[in-house]
């Protein structure tokens, strides 16, 4: 497979996005174009990319070490050159495969979900752009090119979260996502600038960075690593920059699925894995990352326990699961973190798409306490959601079990018992809040008698595919006790980090403990919610329900400070200083003009007299000056 096709993995969705955008403009201004045309084009693009990705996957499997394609110089200043470069190594092709696979399924699902929407073509244009940006992010061969994708992903999330822009709340959510990402991106940019300052002269693609990273002093590496991680916090929604993710639910549900499963939030984990040569040198920062991940996991899980909006619960569960991934990558177990990214993509996409199906079926009802008794009425959704819930709760043999268990094992083996404890406790909480959602939605006394909206095949088919993924994708990373070849670790050999030896009996004990934690969570949820009676009033309130008042705290600490600073600038500096200076200048000119204007008496003879005086004095000057 020629490395030339690497660029086309990104270009196909990008061209498709542009084409769809133009077609949409044509559709709304000249002649209406059928939704089917948009959907067909939009779905084709990620599928083609996926096929190219498979081609590269086979190439790598058959012994190619990596593909590099550098079509042109993106930026050249004197002898310093940044190539527009694509790098297809095992890590990036691994990312490409599941991004395009799950992206394609979400596209198919969205074709049914968005049916009849006015912005159908626009939606798919953004969607393809989102996939293209994410692919650029993972395929870039230098941090600068990665940053293009990094920023485009932020842009696309903004466009899609605020997709229903007629509602001001959605616009606010879009802005919030954009601003929180901006804060993170600033950190990322600072990290890049530092990195460039120290090693940029020697080349700035990953291989050069890896080669020359040793010449950077250690304390600078700590700054770089922390600054880059701030970027990851923003993109991957970790404490304290997670606030945008729950609000990002304002967008259509396929957008949530795309952001949470295939794109965007995994960017941070990918970035840390990509810079593994840097983080390997600074284990203290790695530990910091792991702790941030652990606390994010716990914090989000606690909040998720009390939420009532189905999509909000899933959003917090994403933050929580991302926390697990950061525990893994922070401790240097990059392949384990990426394994969890992989399995999480399946079950989280499935959860969101299942939730979207429920929301559509119930005519855009999102409060789980107004659902109830859906098991008999939506049997297919019931089954796939059950699979997804078991997967996220870590019940074997579903996908989430293997990856989460491996993360916990790694944490324990690194002697980070606090992280292990938090992770285990969070696993129980996860099982609890996911099954709370599940029981309240599907069991309980039948609450809603509303007629259900029928679901189209394009919404159901991806669910089934993903359900298989959520059930079986865990088998690519079997622990040693079951199999000697851990496919993920073999594939991502360079990223497996410090190898850990665990005896078989230890692995079994750890698995048993995890499963027990998950089962306890499920049991508590069963007792409390299996026969949930919807007639009783739901008590809303309390510190957890209000998300620990973090939004209010940020509002108080930052938003209001910035606002009063803005007011100060607007009133005191702008009105008082700048306007005053400018106005007094212009008033001065006006007064001067008035005075000069008096000389314009329209008396021609006076003008002639002035001229005479002027000419005479000038002549005299010349005579006496030059006559000497």
């Amino acid at each position, binding site marked *: 497979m020629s490395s030339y096709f690497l660029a086309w993995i990104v270009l196909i969705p990008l061209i498709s996005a542009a084409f769809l955008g133009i077609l949409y403009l044509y559709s709304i201004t000249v002649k209406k174009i059928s939704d089917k045309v948009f959907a067909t084009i939009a779905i084709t693009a990620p599928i083609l990319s996926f096929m190219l990705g498979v081609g590269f996957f086979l190439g790598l499997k058959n012994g190619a070490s990596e593909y590099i394609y550098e079509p042109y110089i993106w930026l050249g200043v004197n002898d310093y050159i940044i190539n527009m470069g694509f790098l297809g190594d095992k890590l990036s092709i691994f990312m490409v495969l599941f991004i395009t696979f799950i992206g394609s399924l979400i596209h198919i699902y969205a074709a049914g979900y968005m049916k009849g929407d006015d912005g159908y073509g626009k939606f798919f244009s953004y969607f393809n752009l989102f996939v293209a940006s994410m692919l650029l992010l993972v395929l870039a061969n230098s941090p600068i090119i990665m940053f293009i994708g990094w920023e485009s992903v932020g842009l696309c999330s903004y466009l899609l979260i605020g997709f229903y822009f007629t509602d001001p709340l959605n616009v606010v959510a879009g802005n919030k996502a954009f601003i929180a990402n901006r804060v993170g991106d600033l950190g990322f940019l600072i990290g890049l600038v530092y990195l460039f300052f120290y090693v940029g002269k020697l080349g700035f693609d990953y291989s050069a960075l890896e080669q020359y990273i040793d010449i950077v002093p250690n304390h600078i590496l700590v700054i770089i690593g922390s600054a880059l991680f701030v970027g990851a916090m923003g993109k991957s929604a970790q404490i304290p920059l997670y606030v945008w993710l729950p609000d990002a639910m304002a967008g259509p549900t396929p957008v949530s699925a795309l952001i949470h499963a295939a794109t965007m939030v995994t960017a941070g984990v990918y970035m840390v894995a990509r810079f593994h040569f840097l983080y390997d040198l600074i284990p203290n920062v790695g530990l910091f990352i792991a702790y941030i991940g652990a606390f994010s996991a716990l914090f989000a899980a606690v909040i998720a326990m009390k939420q009532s909006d189905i999509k909000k619960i899933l959003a917090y569960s994403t933050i929580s699961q991302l926390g697990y991934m950061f525990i893994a990558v922070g401790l240097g177990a990059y392949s384990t973190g990426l394994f969890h990214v992989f399995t999480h993509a399946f079950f989280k996409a499935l959860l969101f798409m299942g939730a979207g199906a429920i929301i559509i079926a119930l005519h855009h009802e999102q409060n789980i306490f107004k659902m109830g008794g859906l098991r008999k009425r939506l049997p297919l959704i019931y089954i796939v959601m059950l699979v997804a819930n078991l997967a996220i709760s870590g019940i074997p043999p579903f996908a989430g079990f293997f990856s989460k268990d491996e993360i916990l094992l790694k944490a324990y083996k690194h002697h980070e018992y606090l992280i292990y404890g938090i992770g285990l406790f969070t696993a129980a909480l996860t099982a609890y809040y996911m099954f709370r959602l599940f029981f309240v939605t599907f069991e309980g006394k039948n609450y809603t008698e509303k007629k259900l909206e029928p679901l189209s095949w394009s919404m159901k088919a991806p669910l089934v595919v993903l359900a298989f993924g959520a059930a079986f994708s865990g088998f690519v990373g079997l622990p040693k006790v079951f199999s000697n070849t851990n496919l993920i670790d073999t594939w991502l050999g360079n990223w497996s980090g410090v190898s850990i030896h665990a005896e078989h009996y230890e692995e079994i004990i750890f698995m048993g403990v995890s499963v027990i934690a998950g089962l306890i969570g499920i049991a508590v949820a069963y007792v409390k919610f299996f026969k949930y009676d919807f007639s009783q009033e739901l008590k809303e309130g309390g510190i957890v329900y209000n998300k620990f008042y973090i939004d209010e705290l940020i509002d108080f600490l930052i938003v209001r400070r910035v606002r009063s600073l803005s007011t100060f600038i607007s009133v005191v500096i702008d009105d008082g200083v700048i306007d005053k200076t400018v106005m007094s200048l212009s008033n001065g000119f006006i007064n001067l003009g008035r005075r000069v204007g008096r000389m314009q008496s329209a008396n021609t003879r006076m003008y002639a*007299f002035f001229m005479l005086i002027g000419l005479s004095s000038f002549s005299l000057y010349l005579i006496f000056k030059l006559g000497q």
Partner: protein
Amino acid sequence: MMEVSFMSYILLAIILFSMGIMGVISRKNIFIIYMSLELMLNSINLILVTLSKHFGNMDGQIIAMMVIAIAAAEAAVFLSLIVSLYRLKHSINIDDYNTLKQKGTL
């Protein structure tokens, strides 16, 4: 023939020029002002010719001829302007043409 000194030509030119200036400054009639302007022009011509003769160089005379030619063309423009000005206001008093005067305050 009486020999006329060089300085007396210059003196004549200065007198003519001063008369022209006084005419431009003190008269109201546009025609008189124009005639005064021509007078100033010609006094300069006189100086040019005189100096040319005095220094034995023909440049000054050539310039004088050119000035006369251009003054003729200018006269045509000037006179037609005066005619159109007269049609506009039925006056050849320079003080009546004060459209560009600043009126009141800004």
